[in-house]
């Protein structure tokens, strides 16, 4: 085994210190070492988008990052977005528009949609579709996902909800 790397990493506001094997993927670090299984693992080569998280506020594929790289950085996973009682506006829109069926792609869709709407708050329908195109839904429930993101974009624009994290 290669020499472990010591990291300080902040995940959903909480700081952890771990010694990690260099080859440990961030997705496995989150799921196995921290027990944050909301981040789903689909393809492990950056194609399906299920494992999308935020690193220092920007969306990234956690299967294409090593935990060892993230010393001093801040990660947000789907667990850090909201709670059942106080959902993130995009989560709320997914709930209201039936934008999930089996739920496997949902965490990645949420993280992707939030980063998209933060960077393009006035996203057109086409930009929303383009923005979600890197995330696969195995139930093929794309129409409702697009509708939910459209609704979330409009709600966030109206300013009647808290700002997207």
């Amino acid at each position, binding site marked *: 085994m290669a020499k472990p790397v010591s990291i300080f990493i902040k995940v959903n506001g909480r700081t952890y210190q771990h010694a990690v094997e260099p*080859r440990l993927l961030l997705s496995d670090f989150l799921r196995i070492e921290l027990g944050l299984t909301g981040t789903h693992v689909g393809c*492990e080569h950056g194609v399906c988008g299920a494992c999308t998280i935020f690193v220092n506020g920007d969306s990234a594929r956690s299967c294409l990052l090593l935990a060892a790289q993230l010393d001093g950085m801040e990660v947000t996973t789907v667990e850090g977005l909201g709670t059942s009682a106080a959902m993130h506006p995009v989560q709320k829109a997914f709930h209201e528009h039936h934008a999930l069926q089996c739920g496997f792609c949902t965490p990645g869709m949420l993280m992707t949609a939030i980063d998209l709407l933060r960077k393009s708050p006035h996203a057109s329908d086409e930009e929303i579709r383009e923005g979600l195109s890197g995330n696969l839904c195995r139930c093929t429930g794309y129409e409702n996902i697009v509708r939910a993101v459209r609704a979330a974009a409009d709600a966030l624009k109206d300013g009647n909800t808290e700002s997207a994290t």
Partner: protein
Amino acid sequence: MKPPVFDYLSVASVEAATAALAAAAGDGKLLAGGQSLMPMLNFRLLRPSVLIDINRIPDLAYVKEQSDRIRIGALTRHRTLEGSDLVAKHLPVLREAMGHVAHLAIRNRGTIGGSLSHADPAAELPMMSMLLDADLELASAQGSRTLSAAEFFLGALTTNLADDEMLVSVSIPKLPSGCGWAFEEVARRSGDFALACVAITLNRDGDHVSNARIGMMGVGETPMRATEAEALLISGPLDDRLVLAAVSSIRTAVDPNTDLHASADYRRHLVGVLAERAIRKAWARATEASRG
């Protein structure tokens, strides 16, 4: 689907990175954005003894204006290039191309140095560096050298980079004033690798084209320039006959592969369709610029 065992080394300078590459004697890999390297590691297509993380090297991510050129640091993320005012102003065709590079989460991480060093024949940045006559600055423990994009790409996923060398910056001449340009790509899904792609820059000189540059990808082992079609385009007044002659020469020049996504014949047809659209669009833009 998990990476093989390797050591991890985070370096704080180009000198430390090239020294680590030299010490690894061909068995080290630089980790920049990781958007191509990590999938290859996860598939175990690569088994380096050490990963040298260059993400913490300061001053390696920048977009700068240097008289008639734009210089881009190797660690510049795709997302930064996409949003750069300098790129939008002086290299609008590159700005357009960046919108086709993968997806937001990939663009947040992926770097220009990584994309060029990986040299995927169906990736946008290698083709754009060929189209725009970019110079690539390489550093090693021995010193530095500069190669043109045409000298840099040797084959699919193969470049002129030595084992102990790293790409540190890319220098691209600004487009001339009045330049018309176009970028036409077809991919199965938005953000996927291209089935075929054509990008063009040209100027209008009366009823003639001047400075024609045509880049193509997805239709060969490396991105390439359509030199014969470029020569045809400037050979006489631009009319339908000349456009179709250029398209026909492009279809003859390419040697595409058949794979899961498309047949060679389809790609050959497609690259011609895209070339015709691109020529007409670039001509229209150049016409507008010459009026403005």
